[in-house]
């Protein structure tokens, strides 16, 4: 098991087999595929619940100045004269306790989650855009481009995720002329680009698979007969029909990116945004030092937040996949 949730593990083309929805083609023909997908998603209870939870979480986190109780870098006021406010366990003044310099973990968690969500989303979006473009092109053109793409991604994905990540990170950081583009090795921009660089390969394979599958269908033949170019076929016919798997890939990419950022930070290879900001990854990473010292809140709350985030997004991804499963669009029995 590769330890990180690389998108290839939760392969969007994995069948889900929802038997009860198959009424042998006798159901309503008046709903559009999009409406049917939405209806199916709605009936997937865990996904709906997760979506609501995630929405609330995101809102909560976005309204940070209101919802947080202190600033990111602000030590809480001293509780008792003369007593330090370092490493306080959870209490009324600091719901999740305080850290090594007396900052409120609860507030820092809110700000940190916001940063990590941004990192995850940006990396995933970039990865999906690049991956879709390359994957679609490879699928429709075939030939040597496709072969090379498959080989290259095969090699990359053959190495343990963290290994490839670390090596790439170092390489990227060592190439001087890239620095103006990618930023410092410890900057947030760098991390986003690094994660995107990894994510696109999984997405590209998914999109390529979709294109290959749809390429042989009659409506593509018809479009070709009307003189449509490759680019037009991809953009107007194949991609719209692949929205489902692409959305699923996007969802799982977000999770993968968030967890990857946390993993990097855990080992100290993640973003270091300085004292005025923090990320969920950094907070989770700091739990390393606190395992044996008994400051359990420093471990529990960041980890719980990470798991909650990952869980809700994964559930939504699952629901999306069930809802857009091409297998469920079978014809008459």
């Amino acid at each position: 098991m590769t330890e990180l949730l690389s998108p290839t593990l939760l392969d969007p083309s994995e069948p889900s087999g929802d038997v009860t929805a198959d009424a042998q083609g006798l159901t309503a023909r008046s709903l559009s595929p999009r409406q049917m997908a939405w209806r199916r998603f709605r009936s997937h209870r865990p996904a709906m619940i997760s979506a609501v939870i995630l929405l609330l979480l995101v809102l909560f986190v976005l309204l940070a100045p209101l919802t947080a109780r202190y600033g990111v870098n602000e030590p809480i006021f001293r509780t008792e004269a003369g007593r330090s406010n370092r490493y306080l366990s959870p209490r009324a003044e600091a719901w999740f306790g305080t850290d090594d310099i007396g900052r409120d973990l609860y507030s820092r968690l809110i700000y940190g989650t916001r940063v990590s969500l941004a990192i995850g989303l940006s990396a995933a979006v970039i990865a999906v855009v690049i991956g879709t473009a390359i994957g679609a092109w490879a699928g429709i053109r075939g030939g040597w481009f496709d072969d090379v793409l498959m080989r290259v991604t095969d090699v990359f994905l053959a190495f343990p995720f963290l290994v490839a990540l670390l090596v790439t990170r170092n390489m990227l950081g060592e190439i001087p002329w890239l620095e103006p583009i990618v930023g410092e090795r410890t900057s947030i921009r760098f991390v986003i680009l690094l994660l995107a660089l990894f994510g696109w390969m999984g997405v590209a394979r998914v999109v390529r698979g979709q294109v290959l599958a749809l390429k042989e269908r009659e409506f593509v033949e018809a479009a070709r007969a009307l003189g449509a170019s490759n680019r037009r076929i991809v953009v107007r016919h194949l991609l719209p029909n692949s929205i489902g798997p692409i959305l699923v890939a996007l969802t799982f990419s977000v999770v993968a990116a968030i967890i990857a950022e946390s993993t990097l930070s855990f080992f100290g290879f993640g973003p270091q945004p300085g004292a005025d900001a923090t990320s969920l990854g950094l907070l989770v990473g700091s739990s390393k030092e606190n395992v044996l010292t008994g400051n359990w809140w420093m471990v529990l709350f960041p980890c719980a937040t990470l798991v909650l985030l990952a869980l809700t997004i994964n559930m939504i991804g699952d629901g999306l996949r069930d809802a857009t499963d091409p297998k469920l669009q079978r014809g008459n029995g």
Partner: protein
Amino acid sequence: MLRFVVRRLMWAVPTLLVVTFLVYVAIRIGTDPVASYVRSNARASQAKIDEYIERNGLYEGVDGYIRGYFRWLGGFLSGDWPRSIKGNQEVWPDLKNAMGNSLRLAGLGALVGIVLGCGFGVLAALKPGSIRDGSVNTTALVMLSIPPFVSAVILQMVFAVYTRQWFPGARWLHFPTSGVYPPGHRGFDLIEMLRHLTLPVTVVAIQSVAVYTRYMRASLLDVLNSDYLRTARAKGISERRVLVHHALRNAMLPIVTLAAIDFGLLFGGLIITERIFEYPGLGNFFLTAYSNGDFPQLMPWMVIVVIAVILFNLLADLSYAFLDPRIRLD
């Protein structure tokens, strides 16, 4: 089939060459081996440094890279491996040790994953849409959403600190949280080894069980909805025979190939778990070597990982051909 194997192995050679070359370049650029050597051996003379460059093939310049790669390759293939930069140790004994440890950890973790995962997957697929199915699915997803370093850290915290506090009497519960054996232990002791493996294997198993559950469920559901299963039922054979002889027999197919490929990846992939539990496997080996910039340790490690992946991919294809008569390899 022999022809297939031979052909694949022949293809493996150029693949290995290309990949190891790329790795060589990546590591040289990424870790600056010479600077790392100097860092670890601050009092090394220039002669020693030159010797290090020569033995590892670390010449400068584009042509230097190519020449250097072949110099390294020559040394590697002839068995004359340079020693590590820290402590000047032989690389192979530690690497061999690490391989053994990782094999045990990965093997046990994969075994638990396959057995439990397939079991749950089957249970879920037999009653799709039921409460049983929903809870299995949800549990699997929850487990998948717990990144290994989270479960490792939490387990370590619980077992290193709290079990001793809360249950001081239950000695058996105090699972060790580091190493393969207690410090200073000598010789082979199965019980101790298993006790030390318990926590790391649990971390691996959390992910492993979840993945196999989902794959088995999907695979079995696919098979249960297939036409030939309908035919089997139409034949009036007992439901049990339908399940075992037809459904499971066909559903296991993709699982077997998945397991083979997966195990190949597992080899060097347990870095996080090993680091947190200070378990001296391949993952830990890599992390240490990497932070030291230890070229003589990193290159053999990479070669082993690539060989493992190629080997297990081959195994996956062979097993698929063995189990599915539709696939004939030549």
